[in-house]
């Protein structure tokens, strides 16, 4: 059965779009069929991060308004064929998105894919409300920093009250994804500790994505980090998170870039 997942945060710039692309690609790399939808009307970016910006002809609003068929608007990824994108409109107003229209499209996508992943815009207004409205599962993206944690708390409240599932009295599955994590700064006490963030927000941890240049490099070339540098620290963290989403039990570690170097040093010492 299809799962509708929203990637949300409240605060802007914490890594929602990066996460949507990386988790979407990771699930697709694992054989699942996945569609990622950009809900950031007017500020679309998911197409860029996925390297599909020149292939967008029709977008979410065209489909909602009946100007294009869903099949015309879906863009299939050139690297992973089970991954598709539904872009946001760059020119139209977000008021063109009706709740009824979004609901209809998500219902249609449920029939075709294993995962429907909604990339929420920042804020708690219409765009983010619609992105979470029909979700079964939420990934709350948080940076270990006060304003991000506060906004995540607010978003968790909305997930528990304003989604269709919450209104029907059903369970809304929520997962915390800590991104842009810097272990050295956590150790020096400059960044909130993961355990503190977990205690404050009290939702289960899906993963910890380290701060890494590979993320920027991947978005520069228009490829999700899990495809562009699958062995890099952030890619391994996203691949593990995707496995956890599928119910696998994977030990929680923060992958680091220098692991190979450390290991080889140890070997040298042992030899």
């Amino acid at each position: 059965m299809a799962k509708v997942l929203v990637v949300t945060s409240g605060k802007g710039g914490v890594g929602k779009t990066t996460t949507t692309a990386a988790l979407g690609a990771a699930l697709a790399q694992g054989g699942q069929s996945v569609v990622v939808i950009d809900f950031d009307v007017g500020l679309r970016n998911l197409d860029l991060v996925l390297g599909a910006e020149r292939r967008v002809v029709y977008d979410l609003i065209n489909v909602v308004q009946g100007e294009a068929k869903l099949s015309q608007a879906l863009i299939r990824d050139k690297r992973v064929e089970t991954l598709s994108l539904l872009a946001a409109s760059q020119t139209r107003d977000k008021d063109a998105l009706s709740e009824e229209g979004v609901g209809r499209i998500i219902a249609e996508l449920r029939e075709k894919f294993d995962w429907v992943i909604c990339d929420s815009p920042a804020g708690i207004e219409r765009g983010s409300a619609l992105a979470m409205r029909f979700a079964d599962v939420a990934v709350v993206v948080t940076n270990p920093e006060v304003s991000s944690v506060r906004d995540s708390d607010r978003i968790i409240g909305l997930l528990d009250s304003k989604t269709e599932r919450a209104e029907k009295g059903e369970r809304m599955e929520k997962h915390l994804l800590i991104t842009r994590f810097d272990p050295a700064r956590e150790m020096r006490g400059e960044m909130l500790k993961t355990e503190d963030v977990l205690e404050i927000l009290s939702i289960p941890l899906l993963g910890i994505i380290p701060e890494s240049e590979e993320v920027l490099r991947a978005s520069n070339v228009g490829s999700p980090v899990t495809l562009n540098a699958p062995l890099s620290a952030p890619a391994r963290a996203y691949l593990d998170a995707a496995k956890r989403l599928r119910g696998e039990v994977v030990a929680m570690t923060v992958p680091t870039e220098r692991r190979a170097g450390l290991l080889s040093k140890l070997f040298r010492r042992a030899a």
Partner: protein
Amino acid sequence: MNLLSFFQRRRGSAPIARDRLQVLLAHERAVLGQRDLVAILREEILAVIGRHVRVDSDKVRVKMDRGASISTLEVDIEIPTAEGGLKLAIAG
């Protein structure tokens, strides 16, 4: 530099961030309504029933309707039985 700020500098500013957040969010949650009450009730109801019968977490619905003078809590649980299913509904 006084002693307190000396120690704070050594420990880093993250513990202060944590303490400020805990105070702030306790306040905000109270103002915006108890966010988790329904979610907490669902988990606990599920745990209690799960001690006696097997229930699927998706088959438990807990709904709160807040009214001006009274609020109602509706609990709806589907329990599988050999004959095919028994529905338990509690409203109050």
